[in-house]
């Protein structure tokens, strides 16, 4: 992320406000932006959700197709997560093959839902070693005002909740709801001048020193974590973000 002159000025502005305990959009440090979730937004998908987190807007679509399991997990369906940071969403995104940033976003989203067992993949097995459901989770970012990690994670969880396995169309019996197991919710925080802010906006992300995403499940256990950016965290700061993730995750989960 190139930090040029404009960014320096922006940084000064943001930092000065933070000294006074204020974020540029008036939020408290530990306050999320307004969240709206609209499920079944895409009729051609087996499950879908359109999520707005402040001005960030993503559409998550879930598709299921028949395929073969991996050799080392013959009894499990296959989960594939893809995130497209398309140039529509921001002038900082470029077209073409996914860059490191898109890949990190996709992998962090994937890690949250995979390690948190959002979907019971064993229930997506049709014939062990032969045929399983391949589940594609596609994240389409339409408008990018920061914190894709959480917007997409929420979208994926919401889409799962309403998704239907299209067994009938594939000649595999009756349709049934996607077997949801947990709701691993991620929380992303950034550090700017030693302050920890949750749900960063695009401007906050651009000037942040470090970023930490922590995903937790219902019982408060941790299932995934990713630190990013050039800065560092202290151990206490890590523990603080973990606590915030537990607390805010519970709130978000209750609203899905």
């Amino acid at each position: 992320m190139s930090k040029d002159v404009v960014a320096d000025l922006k940084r000064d502005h943001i930092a000065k406000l933070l000294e006074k305990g204020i974020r540029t959009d008036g939020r408290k440090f530990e306050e999320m932006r307004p969240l709206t979730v609209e499920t079944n937004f895409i009729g051609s998908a087996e499950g879908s959700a359109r999520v707005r987190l402040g001005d960030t807007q993503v559409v998550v679509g879930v598709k299921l197709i028949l395929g073969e399991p991996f050799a080392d997990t013959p009894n499990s369906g296959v989960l594939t997560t893809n995130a497209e940071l398309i140039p529509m969403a921001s002038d900082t995104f470029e077209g073409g093959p996914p860059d490191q940033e898109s890949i990190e976003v996709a992998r962090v989203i994937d890690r949250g839902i995979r390690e948190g067992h959002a979907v019971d993949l064993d229930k997506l097995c049709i014939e062990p070693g032969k045929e399983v459901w391949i589940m594609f989770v596609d994240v389409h970012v339409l408008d990018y005002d920061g914190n894709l990690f959480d917007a997409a994670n929420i979208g994926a969880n919401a889409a799962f909740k309403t998704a239907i396995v299209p067994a009938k169309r594939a000649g595999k019996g009756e349709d049934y709801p996607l077997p949801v197991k947990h709701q691993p919710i991620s929380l992303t925080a950034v550090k700017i001048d030693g302050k920890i802010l949750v749900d960063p906006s695009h401007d906050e992300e651009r000037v942040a020193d470090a970023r930490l995403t922590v995903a937790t499940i219902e019982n408060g256990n941790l299932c995934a974590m990713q630190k990013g950016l050039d800065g560092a965290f202290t151990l206490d700061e890590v523990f603080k973000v973990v606590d915030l993730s537990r607390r805010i995750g519970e709130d978000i989960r209750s609203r899905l």
Partner: protein
Amino acid sequence: MGGTPTDLKLIDENGRRLDGRLPDEMRPLKIEAGVLSRADGSAYVEWGLNKVMAAVYGPRECHPRHLQNPERALVQCNYNMASFSVDDRKRPGPDRRSHEISKIISEALTHVVFTEYFPRTSIDVYIEVLQANAGTRCAGLTAASVALADAGVPMRDLVASCAAGKVADTVVVDLAKEEDNFGQADIPLGYVPRTGEIVLLQMDGDLTSDQFNKGISMAMEGCKKVYEVQRDALKRRYEVRSAGTELEVLGAAPAKEGM
């Protein structure tokens, strides 16, 4: 895949189409302008079961530089289908079809933009098809025009777009998915209502001369209806935006058009 051309009655005994429409009846169309925060202009279109988003960035510096035109702006459209927009998941990324559509939409839009005002720049138009149900290039071009206007890009007029086609030997307007899959011809049209110019035209299938003439007329009528919805969307947008600020959008002479 139960339905095959032979089982499927695309036009019933009352002359109604699968979804109950008459031959010259269009699907419901809703357009909303200014729906995205980051883009300079945007529009969202729901047209039947199509859901299409368009965004515009620019005029801005043109990359790579060797593409810059010293005399005018480049209008570069990128049409893309979301992987979940169709029943069988589409692999992400452009395919040959989307490259072709991007090219002809770019050309259609270039015709109406005052590109000579912005030499060396690029006006980038992104079209994302979120849900597809036949007619996405028309929906995309329609949305892109509105997004350009929303971005304040000076234009001679909006481009309106609509298709006609032939199903069960009947010429009809605005084909839906089954009609497109099992029909006999399709004629997507991009049209400039103010001048009567044709800026996008394709056709495939089988048409007699008369059928073609009838089809293109129907598509033109469709475009005129689309144009009204486009203008309504922009009006609503300006009403929201402007509490006393001046309107200046459709380049040439917007005042005359009452916008």
